[in-house]
């Protein structure tokens, strides 16, 4: 394969922009993974509400955002909202859109872990005199989060991969910069191969970190 020297030259030349793009990718991924987790815990809490209306609305939220393609949501907010006089920066559109979407998925993962809990433990907590919120905070959440580490990790990986769609709303993240590099010298294969390897490396870091977390939070004597 030829063209390597010119590719490396262009790569080095554009490296500051590519690294800045990588920084934008990581910033978006880390931020939405955290806000999505917090949002997911909040939505999950509402699915356990004692008020039927709240439970129904929360289920509706989860169904709506799981059913809605992320790109449609981002376009709706980025291109649609200005028509109503509301203009938001690409970064904040991405953060808000991802958070709404990821919170719905995370809440669904936490709910399925909750369904596997021993309900007698929750009854025991209620019978000890703990309030609804205390049962959630002291018994439900610590167990459900532990059980959900693999699913939540997958979601973090998806967040990283899905961050590539943010360039469609003018958020210049890593993939957008790699596209620019490819367009500079028409070395599409090399540019996208490099992009793929960077994403794989980042995913590997997430997987290794998640394994360490999983090992750390495993409950002794509980085998799954």
């Amino acid at each position, binding site marked *: 394969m030829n063209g390597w020297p010119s590719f490396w030259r262009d790569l080095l030349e554009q490296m500051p922009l590519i690294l800045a793009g990588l920084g934008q990718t990581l910033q978006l991924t880390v931020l939405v993974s955290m806000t999505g987790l917090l949002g997911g815990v909040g939505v999950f809490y509402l699915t356990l509400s004692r008020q039927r209306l709240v439970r129904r609305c929360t289920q509706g939220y989860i169904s709506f955002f799981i059913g809605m393609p992320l790109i449609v949501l981002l376009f709706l907010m980025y291109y649609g909202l200005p028509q109503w006089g509301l203009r938001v920066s690409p970064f904040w559109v991405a953060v808000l859109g991802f958070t709404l979407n990821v919170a719905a998925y995370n809440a669904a993962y936490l709910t399925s872990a909750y369904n596997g809990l*021993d309900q*007698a433990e929750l*009854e025991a907590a209620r019978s*000890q*005199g703990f309030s609804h919120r205390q049962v959630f905070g002291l*018994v439900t959440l610590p*167990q459900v989060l532990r059980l959900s580490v693999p699913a939540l990790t997958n979601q973090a990986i998806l967040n990283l991969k899905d961050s590539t769609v943010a360039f469609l709303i003018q958020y210049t993240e890593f993939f957008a910069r790699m596209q620019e590099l490819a367009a500079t010298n028409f070395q599409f294969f090399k540019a996208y191969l490099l992009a793929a390897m960077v994403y794989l490396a980042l995913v590997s870091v997430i997987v290794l970190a998640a394994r360490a977390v999983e090992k750390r939070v495993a*409950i*002794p004597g509980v085998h799954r």
Partner: protein
Amino acid sequence: MTATPLIQVRDLVKEFDGQRVLAGVNLDLAEGDIKVVMGPSGCGKSTLLRCLNRLVEPTSGTIHFRGQEVTGPGVDVRALRQGIGFVFQQFALYRHLTVLGNVTLGLRKLRGLRRAEAEQKALHELDRLGMAEHRDKYPGQISGGQKQRVALARALAMDPAVVVLDEPTSALDPVLSREVAQLIRRLHDEKVTLMCVTHDLQLARSIADQVVFLDRGVVRAEDSVARLSADHPDPQVRAFFGRETGT
């Protein structure tokens, strides 16, 4: 004996989807006493226990706890529950907490004790039940009998007015069941008020002189096991106790 019993249940009814699980239960439990409730599966034993601390809301009837009616609205249900130590059939220990954590959780979060104080009290209870050396183990690392003791320590640590045991031997082998009986007798000797629902006739016989027989949601008899199995006029009662003693 004091005039008012610690727990007084009158005409207690509980219906689930129109089906009467409790059909007018009357029951008294005096302070320092032990009450054993027996009956076939589905007779309403567990529902009765759950009505006492309002894990299940009764349909009608009254429950007086320390002389106060506790079934109506405006009752501090959480305070009521803290006064009733509940030991569940499958022990229901919090699996993500150590043995010590299981006992201290209520002391810290409900009683507001500091960690050191809570641990001191929890260790006292665990030691009383021979479980102090297992303080750092998790529920998944101890046996059924040990779990039972931790569940009991968790209940006792809150200084409840009464300890309620739901089928305490159903998940244990005969040797451990005998140990539980000894333990219950010891607690009774220490003036702990106890209420126990069970299928286990051996257990019933060894912890109480008299048992309450609950069937189809009503108390059908209250007498010694010997009399209930031999010459009770109600054939249902004789059948239940006869069958149980035959096995």
